[in-house]
């Protein structure tokens, strides 16, 4: 047993991180937001080139992929990242062109009280994941209304009034496996949100002075941040455990439970860390300019994807 990153894993993660820092720094994220946040096809293909969508098709495991998605979450990368990765498949592609970034693939699970699709206007293909199977739908055929003010300006959404059936790609088994993989990748994005907000809060707490000292010297601030870190590290363990289990390198635990635990922890922790990051920033945390709010909004979005933390806590209990 060795549950620490090995050198290959570390260098893969470092690689994705430097790529994002160079190609999609926070300045670019903010600029993207101002122009409506439609998926940038050049960026998308660049993401494909570093393997974001094709990692597993190229023979890497969920472990490496989760490490990459952690970085995407940290960098606040937007677009249907998880969906396009799932569409690229593992042994064979589910949707051609997803892996090399030539086609942007989204995903929707019909839900109550409303069905909402992220990034619909940017999609080339749409996967509809239902209990009984997975269906490929032409995004242009979805009857929907775009929302003028999405919560996360980087995640445009549309409300669906009618969803065509589409072409069936697989049955209940495929559906379950996409959901399971989607949960792990989403929880990796959420872990990235936790880690990014800790860095943001720390930088601010070290630099911001009130009452003649850096606010990071006040116990109240220290303890909020210690709680952030604690939740993030417990979440990291849960997310990595889920990824490792999916790669068949786990212990004898029930894989479905390990995956649920990751989504529960990641959902709760990302919301907690982002909210606390705002609080550490005080008034500045409430400005549009500071990224704390972007992470909080993203944490809200991610929690609703592939079932929120309450949903999976209930599912975990049901399986006890």
């Amino acid at each position, binding site marked *: 047993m060795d549950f620490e990153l090995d050198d290959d894993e570390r260098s893969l993660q470092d690689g994705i991180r430097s790529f994002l820092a160079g190609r999609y720094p926070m300045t670019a994220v903010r600029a993207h937001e101002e122009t409506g946040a439609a998926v940038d096809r050049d960026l998308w293909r660049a993401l494909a080139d570093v393997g974001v969508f094709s990692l597993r098709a190229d023979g890497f495991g969920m472990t490496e992929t989760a490490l990459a998605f952690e970085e995407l979450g940290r960098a606040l990368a937007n677009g249907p990242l998880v969906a396009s990765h799932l569409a690229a498949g593992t042994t064979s592609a589910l949707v051609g062109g997803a892996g090399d970034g030539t086609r942007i693939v989204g995903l929707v699970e019909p839900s109550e*009280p409303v069905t909402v699709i992220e990034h619909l206007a940017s999609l080339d293909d749409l996967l509809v994941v239902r209990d009984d199977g997975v269906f490929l739908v032409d995004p242009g055929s979805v009857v929907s209304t775009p929302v003028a003010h999405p*919560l996360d300006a980087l995640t445009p959404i549309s409300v669906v009034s009618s969803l065509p059936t589409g072409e069936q790609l697989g049955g209940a088994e495929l559906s379950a496996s996409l959901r399971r993989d989607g949960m792990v990748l989403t929880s990796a994005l959420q872990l990235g949100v936790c880690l990014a907000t800790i860095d943001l809060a720390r930088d601010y707490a070290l630099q911001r002075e009130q009452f003649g000292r850096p606010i990071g010297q006040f116990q109240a601030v220290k303890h909020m941040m210690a709680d952030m870190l604690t939740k993030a590290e417990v979440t990291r363990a849960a997310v990595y455990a889920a990824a490792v289990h999916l790669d068949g390198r786990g212990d004898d635990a029930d894989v479905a439970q390990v995956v649920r635990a990751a989504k529960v922890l990641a959902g709760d922790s990302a919301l907690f860390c982002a909210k606390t990051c705002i609080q550490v920033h005080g008034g500045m945390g409430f400005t549009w300019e500071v990224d704390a709010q972007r992470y909080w909004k993203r944490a809200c979005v991610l929690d609703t994807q592939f079932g929120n933390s309450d949903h999976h806590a209930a599912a975990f209990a049901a399986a006890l």
Partner: protein
Amino acid sequence: MDLQFTAEEDAFRYELRAWLGTAIASMPVQPQRDDWTARRRYDAAWQRMLFDAGYAGINWPREFGGRGATPTEHLIFLEETERARAPYVGQNFVGLLHAGPTLIAEATPDQKAFHLPGILTGEHIWCQGFSEPSAGSDLASLSCRAMRDGDDYVINGQKIWTSFGHTADYCEMLVRTDSDVPKHRGISWLIVPMGLPGMDVRPLRTMEGSTEFCEVFFDEVRVPVANRVGAENDGWRVTMVTLSFERGTAFISEMLQSMELARDLAELAKRITRNGATAWDDAGLRRDIGRICAELDALWALTKRNVSQAQRTGVVGPGGNVFKLAYAELRQRLGDLAMHLLDRASLSVDDIGDLPSGEHVHGRIHALSLGIAAGTSQVQRNIIAERILGLPKDR
């Protein structure tokens, strides 16, 4: 102890309720959320109606044009206006709740004579120039400088979190007039007309996307010394008058809204179905809503204790800090619960069909600011620990 209103208080309530019934019907449609100029017109018109009916400056002394209402009547006023869904105090907030009361307590007769009527009638909108980028929780460390030059002060520096800075006529402003003394002692309180040469007002975008707040930059802005309220370098004491007012009543209207919102949540839960059952069939959700509603009712009772204390002693005590701390926390829990209930519908800041996502999501975002604005929850806890519990200061 009792929670019953006297005959006089009831009479006040019913007269007000009757007036509100007709007055509100005559108001135009509410302007768009981010049309600040239209909102100024709207808020001023409402203030003028209040003034004409004798309800302006509800808690201001009669000798300064107010109604001289008791704290209990003030509470009734807030209850009834909220109940009638009357316009909120809006852009008259700073003038009526901060600047006006400070002027009443500290200004010269000439300053009062000129400024108080403008506030009461809605003619003059005020904004607040207190916070600075590097003076937030530690407000007294402010560095925006006012140098004496003949009969003027010359101001250089920057203010932030200036609500309605782009529509206001006057700014109540704290400036540093002496840098050589301990920080609390070198501050003065000025009346600064907006739009003076050298002032630059820039809207500050918040995470709600709105621009209620501004940053204001001062480059050699000249203000007559006669615009100072209170003695030079005595501005910290002057402003403490103002701040206690804010804690007393500023959150009552929105607290009443939250109570309604929490009850709306129960209705919403009964409508939302999942897996063939309504969300309301979930015992845990019901318990969460029940607990939040019970706690809001308790906070409302606390408000009445605070009002009763103000009625007896004339000041809002540290009960205001207790209220603020508890309310901020509770409002966040309410918002979290609403967003979890809305699930995917919470991704929109607009309503989706007949789902009231707009109200709940906006409320959730607003709740994030409640733990920060007007004294962070950390500052509130320090105040409670030191002033009520008598624990020693940090250093």
